[in-house]
């Protein structure tokens, strides 16, 4: 649950009983040639720049994002840390202390004229479920503020801005010298690959969950008079239904920038660096940021555009706090509440909503892993991608364990997931009995899933 819980009202007025179709695109399969080409570009293409690729920051083994914990495992010569090694990028290209300490990346969303003072430090948004989370009636919304893409602002164009911002050899940023711009074919392939990642459609809540706490969390989430989450995160996705009208992905000012004691500010004070405020969408910004999907939230923290909060419980609790309730979005929400309340949740309710988010994230982890194993077992994966798929299956399984364990949820399911982890690790490390290991892992994954949710066709 991010910055966008806005809007009040009763279920009768704002209910979302008939969720609109979330996807309207042709769905390329993972085996599609264009997707494969996009995958090669995403992981290998440096565009003649400083050595970074898209996957330098969007790590497959980290849900296509990156955080400080993961960054700490990387060798010093990883391209992520290019600013520490290349003299031409040492100043004003990144803020290494914030990158290493908090996983924050430097962005010049408001222009490149005053690099010393005019920049934002933002987390790396994951690239999962983009097919469900970018579209809005007013046009595509990419990046943290919805305006991350140059040109026509589309997902297809995103790589052009990313190459200019993150790939140059020098801060002159001369096309053809410091980098080359992606070709039309490359943009098409990258877009196809990005759209193939993660969920291809939104959930249809409520789910028949088995855990009592997660079940209660789902009720609160869907209650437009209590949690009010589903108003802007329809079906735990990234789209809003306002006044019964589907409006797709939307931007809101929820006041995250006004949170006290933010880690970046505290670190800045410690090392004598001022972190400029991030004004969000537009130039000058209007203080709004766009709505991310929640299904993938629990294993892709830290949360919010600036990584202000580390835990999913903290992210949910944000909406119960003064900062949100005094924000423009919070005030609008409160103004339409019969009791003038924005969002008010007790600690147990916060934990319950977080438990729900943890559980649906785990179900997504399990679903993705099953798909990966199925593709591998059915030999639908190109040879050059096999190891990556195996590694990803292992990473997804570990995420599922971490997410459930972190909330003290479904211990029996965790037992099955740990067995899956062992089998997935064996499959990833050795050809020996790989297919057998994957086959047994599938059985364990299904057992874990049955402990979490009632399946329609067990």
């Amino acid at each position, binding site marked *: 649950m991010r910055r966008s819980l806005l809007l009040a009202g009763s279920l009768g007025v704002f209910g979302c009983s008939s969720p609109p179709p979330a996807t309207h695109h042709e769905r390329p399969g993972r085996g599609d040639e264009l997707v494969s080409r996009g995958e090669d570009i995403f992981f290998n293409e440096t565009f003649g720049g400083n050595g970074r690729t898209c996957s330098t920051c969007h790590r497959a083994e980290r849900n296509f994002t990156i955080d400080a914990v993961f960054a700490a495992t990387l060798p010093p010569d990883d391209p992520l840390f290019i600013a520490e090694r290349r003299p031409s990028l040492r100043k004003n290209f990144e803020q290494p202390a914030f990158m290493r300490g908090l996983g924050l990346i430097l962005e010049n969303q408001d222009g490149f004229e005053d690099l010393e003072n005019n920049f934002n430090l933002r987390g790396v948004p994951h690239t999962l479920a983009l097919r469900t989370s970018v579209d809005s009636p007013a*046009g595509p919304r990419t990046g943290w503020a919805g305006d991350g893409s140059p040109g026509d602002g589309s997902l297809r164009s995103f790589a052009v801005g990313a190459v*200019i911002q993150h790939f140059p050899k020098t801060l002159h940023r001369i096309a053809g010298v410091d980098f080359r711009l992606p070709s039309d074919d490359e943009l098409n392939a990258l877009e196809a690959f990005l759209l193939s990642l993660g969920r291809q459609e939104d959930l249809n809540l409520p789910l028949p969950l088995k855990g009592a706490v997660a079940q209660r969390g789902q009720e609160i989430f869907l209650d437009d008079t209590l949690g009010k989450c589903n108003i802007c995160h329809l079906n735990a996705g990234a789209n809003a239904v306002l006044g019964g009208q589907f409006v797709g992905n939307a931007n809101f000012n929820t006041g995250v920038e006004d949170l006290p004691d933010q880690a970046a500010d505290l670190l800045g004070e410690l090392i004598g660096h001022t972190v400029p405020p991030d004004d969000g969408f537009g130039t000058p910004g209007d203080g709004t940021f766009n709505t991310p999907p929640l299904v993938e939230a629990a294993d892709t923290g830290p949360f919010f555009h600036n990584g202000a909060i580390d835990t999913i419980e903290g992210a949910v609790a944000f909406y119960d706090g003064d900062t949100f309730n005094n924000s423009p979005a919070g005030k609008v929400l409160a103004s339409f509440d019969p009791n003038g309340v924005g969002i008010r949740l007790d600690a147990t309710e916060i934990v319950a909503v977080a438990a729900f988010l943890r559980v649906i994230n785990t179900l997504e982890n399990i679903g993705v892993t099953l798909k990966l194993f199925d593709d591998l077992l059915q030999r639908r994966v190109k040879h050059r991608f096999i190891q990556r798929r195996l590694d990803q299956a292992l990473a997804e399984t570990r995420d599922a364990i971490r997410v459930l364990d972190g909330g003290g949820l479904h211990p029996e399911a965790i037992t099955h997931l740990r067995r899956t982890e062992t089998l997935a690790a064996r499959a990833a490390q050795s050809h020996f009995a790989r297919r057998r290991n994957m086959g047994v892992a599938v059985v364990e994954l299904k057992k874990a899933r049955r402990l979490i949710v009632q399946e329609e066709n067990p």
Partner: protein
Amino acid sequence: MTRSLLMVGVLLATASAAHAQKATEIYIPIGRSPGLSGKVTVTGFIATVDDHTMVMSVKGADGGWRAVVTDRSKIYIDRSAQRRPNRYGTMDDCKPGHFCEIKYVSGDAAALRRRGEPREIEWIKIRPDNRRSQAEPQGHRVARRSGSSTASQSPSDDSGVAMTIRAVPMVSARRSASHSAMVSCGSPITR
């Protein structure tokens, strides 16, 4: 019902309209703006510049357009062909004969058909020396109008030092005809 409609209005008003990121546009050479170049922009050569009305005309092979430069309009100097950093420019940088790309504020393809009508531009990119950028993809050539290939221009660099650059032909004489046929200047760039 009224309450519901009011809420929708308030919420939609607070939710920002979709928007593209503008900051990196300065670094994108003429003809390479993704999703815009070749669709909703016009390329051609500056024919006239009126400093008083801030209107310039852009002439191409199949017509002319008129561009109104306002305080909101950005002027980018594309020097990537010279392997030098692009920079912001002023009306003083807009001179007849310069190769350019313009994007109108109302950047829809239909608006491009309204030639001759002066309309506000969001940005104009100027390539003072008319050279082909190395950043252009292979197979993409910006055709030169006859007579402009030897024109000397005097752009000033970041330090303000005036310099004279003699434009070199982008394509050999033998090949120029086929490239000109492939890409027509003065119309939305075709790829």
